[in-house]
């Protein structure tokens, strides 16, 4: 199988190089057979990549320790599920996963557009082929999953990093990769539009859903990663502005800006250059994110591998930026706006401000990530950029962004008059000010940023609520029917708009969860002898003894903490440590979540007295409303799905616009 897998990888490289070359020739000659051949090359490349994946998985489950990816990341005792998912624990394996998603997405995008965008598609194939050739070249020649171990073949493997032995790690990396990799498709369409001079809105229509998929996958992947960090890493939080977390956040912010500015180009013919810049930035940041995760240049709780691919990835990012910049400059005359911004008090202006703030936040995060690297390169000293830096910019840029999430939906296109502004915003503003006063009276004024954020959350919630209420009332006035029917009709007829509002609500829920759980959290540490108790935020935790129990490939040593509140029992918490058969040690926190408040009682075992007395050192946190952070993920996905759901009315309109008018040219 190893030989077959290795040949399959070389074949993927050859096929993707061919796809790129055939795409260029098809674009230059207008040869449809070459285009079809290029498209077929991606299907063959996907098949060959899957053969390579199966070959690696076969080596993993049969414990072929002659391969480095098997020997370094698995052991005979590792449960089968984690053995299979250890494919993406290694650099070489994760590169293969990246390649599988890339060839799959490319084949699908080309298949979807086989009868559309005929002028663009050869160049889309060429760009996607170039990207895939780069990554398959890395997998085949630089960091192969079929590389053998140096020296004698070990009897057993080193085992999988304990923190990766968590169900979230089965889903979190593939979800992030889906997000990173699918950003290639919008980038390829943008470059094809620039190469062909087809800078009309057609390419935007084709990539909107791909951008949404990428953006939703990155958002979901980040939240899965945050939940993994919360339940596995054991410091009591879920987001630490870690470089690898930031790696996913930066392209997500750029993609969020792009999804908003696309609307302005489609409706007003503005921001054409800006959209090209954004899509190039989002793709470059996605590859840069891969560089951060895989190169080992940053220290991160999420980074488990160091490999030789770092310089290649960095060179690729530089090449992508140079290529995109050159094309944008070349096509500047075609990218002139059809209309000018007529008033700063208009919806297009709020979209523009939203874009500037999102990009400013993305670049503040980027600077925070690269500063330690630059500092080490220039001064030879590694500096650290810590949480206060990021928190500062999150407040400076994030709070106005939150306000815009409420202002944007209620403001009219082109120009809003003072009368309409007063009429539209009076209730949201009154609600936010009243809410702020109430929160202040409740004692939440200790954090100005927190109070402002929560007040803005009220503002946004009221604006979104009003949008749904007024829209439903208008729909009923127009078509009659019940309220639920009118609401369903309203959302169904305006999926992008109302799906977007649901995402705005998810952001509100996230902000409330983050604000409450970070600004109003309490923590305490104690040494407890058996029978001794500690008290925190009304809870009493009593050491009921230290125990052990066996797991599939580890022994779990834990303390049993009996929890009570006001004399009523609230069950037990059992934080502990897993000592794996391979000698690795992993912390296991225990969390008790209470509904509906979403408050978590979070316990960490910091040490066990080695005199067998049963004494332990523990840390306990009370994290209020942290459940809202995870709820936000569910609402976010719901909003993304509404926005993504195909709209037959829109499809008919596009068919009329592009199909009838230019049928003979295959536009």
């Amino acid at each position: 199988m190893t030989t077959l897998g290795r040949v399959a990888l070389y074949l993927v490289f050859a096929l993707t190089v061919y796809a790129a070359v055939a795409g260029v020739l098809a674009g230059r000659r207008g040869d449809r057979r070459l285009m079809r051949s290029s498209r077929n090359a991606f299907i063959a490349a996907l098949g060959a990549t899957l053969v390579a994946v199966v070959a690696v998985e076969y080596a993993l489950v049969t414990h072929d320790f002659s391969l480095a990816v098997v020997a370094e990341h698995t052991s005979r005792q590792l449960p089968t599920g984690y053995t299979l998912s250890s494919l993406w624990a290694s650099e070489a394996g994760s590169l293969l996963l990246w390649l599988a998603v890339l060839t799959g997405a490319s084949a699908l995008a080309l298949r979807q557009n086989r009868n559309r965008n005929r002028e663009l598609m050869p160049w889309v194939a060429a760009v996607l082929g170039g990207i895939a050739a780069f990554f398959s070249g890395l997998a085949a020649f630089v960091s192969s999953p079929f590389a053998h171990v140096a020296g004698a073949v070990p009897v057993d493997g080193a085992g999988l990093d304990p923190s990766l032995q968590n169900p979230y790690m089965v889903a979190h990396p593939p979800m992030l990769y889906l997000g990173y990799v699918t950003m290639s498709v919008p980038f390829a369409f943008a470059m094809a539009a620039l190469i062909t001079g087809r800078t009309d809105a057609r390419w935007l229509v084709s990539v909107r859903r791909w951008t949404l998929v990428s953006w939703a996958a990155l958002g979901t992947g980040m939240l899965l990663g945050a939940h993994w960090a919360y339940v596995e890493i054991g410091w009591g939080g879920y987001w630490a502005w870690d470089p690898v977390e930031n790696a996913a956040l930066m392209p997500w912010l750029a993609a969020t800006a792009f999804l908003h500015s696309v609307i302005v180009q489609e409706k007003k013919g503005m921001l054409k250059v800006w959209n090209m810049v954004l899509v190039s930035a989002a793709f470059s940041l996605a590859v840069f994110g891969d560089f951060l995760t895989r190169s080992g240049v940053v220290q991160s709780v999420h980074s488990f591998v160091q490999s030789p691919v770092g310089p290649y990835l960095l060179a690729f990012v530089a090449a992508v930026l140079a290529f995109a910049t050159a094309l944008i400059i070349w096509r500047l005359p075609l990218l002139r706006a059809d209309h000018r911004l007529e008033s700063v008090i208009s919806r297009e202006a709020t979209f523009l401000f939203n874009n500037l703030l999102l990009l400013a936040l993305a670049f503040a995060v980027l600077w925070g990530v690269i500063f330690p690297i630059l500092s080490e390169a220039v001064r030879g000293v590694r500096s650290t950029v810590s949480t206060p830096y990021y928190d500062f910019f999150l407040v400076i840029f994030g709070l106005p962004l939150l306000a815009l999430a409420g202002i944007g939906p209620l403001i009219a296109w082109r120009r809003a008059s003072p009368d309409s502004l007063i009429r539209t915003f009076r209730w949201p503003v009154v609600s936010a000010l009243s809410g702020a006063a109430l929160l202040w009276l409740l004692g939440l004024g200790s954090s100005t940023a927190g109070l402002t954020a929560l007040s803005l959350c009220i503002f946004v919630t009221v604006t979104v609520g009003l949008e749904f209420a007024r829209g439903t009332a208008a729909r009923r006035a127009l078509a009659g029917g019940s309220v639920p029917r009118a609401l369903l009709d309203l959302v169904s007829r305006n999926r992008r708009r109302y799906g977007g509002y649901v995402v705005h609500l998810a952001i509100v829920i996230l902000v409330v969860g983050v604000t409450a759980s970070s600004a109003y959290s309490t923590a305490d540490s104690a040494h407890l002898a058996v029978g001794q108790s500690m008290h925190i935020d009304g809870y009493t935790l009593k050491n009921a003894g230290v125990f052990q129990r066996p797991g599939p490939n580890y022994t779990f040593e834990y303390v049993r903490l009996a929890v009570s509140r006001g004399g009523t029992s609230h069950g037990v918490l059992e934080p502990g440590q897993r000592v794996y058969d391979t000698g690795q040690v992993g912390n296991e926190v225990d969390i008790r979540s209470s509904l509906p408040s979403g408050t978590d009682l979070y316990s960490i075992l910091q040490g066990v007295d080695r005199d067998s007395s049963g004494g332990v050192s523990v840390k306990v946190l009370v994290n209020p409303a942290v459940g809202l952070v995870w709820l936000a993920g569910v609402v976010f996905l719901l909003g993304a799905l509404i926005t993504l759901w195909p709209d037959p009315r829109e499809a008919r309109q596009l068919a009329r616009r592009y199909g009838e008018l230019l049928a003979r040219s295959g536009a």
Partner: protein
Amino acid sequence: MTAAAAVAAAAALVMLAVLIIAWPFVSPEREGPEQRLSDDDRRRLALAEARDAAYASLRDLEHDLRTGKVTEADYQAERDRLRAEAARVLRELDQLR
């Protein structure tokens, strides 16, 4: 899997891939060369997008009126402007037909 079987499987994989990419050149299906957009086609396309954008803006404006985001006076002025824009685009499209 024996070495011989692996080599045979690899050879079959390569041959299958070659067949897949060569198929458009050997299949009986024939297609003419791709037609590129003329300048008139590009102009039509730009006008069709402008027409649809004007229609969409009119629909948004109606929605904004019904949901109280614009006053009646603002609505009338903007509606007239958008209708004039749509009429201009349609006239230009007609001239190109």
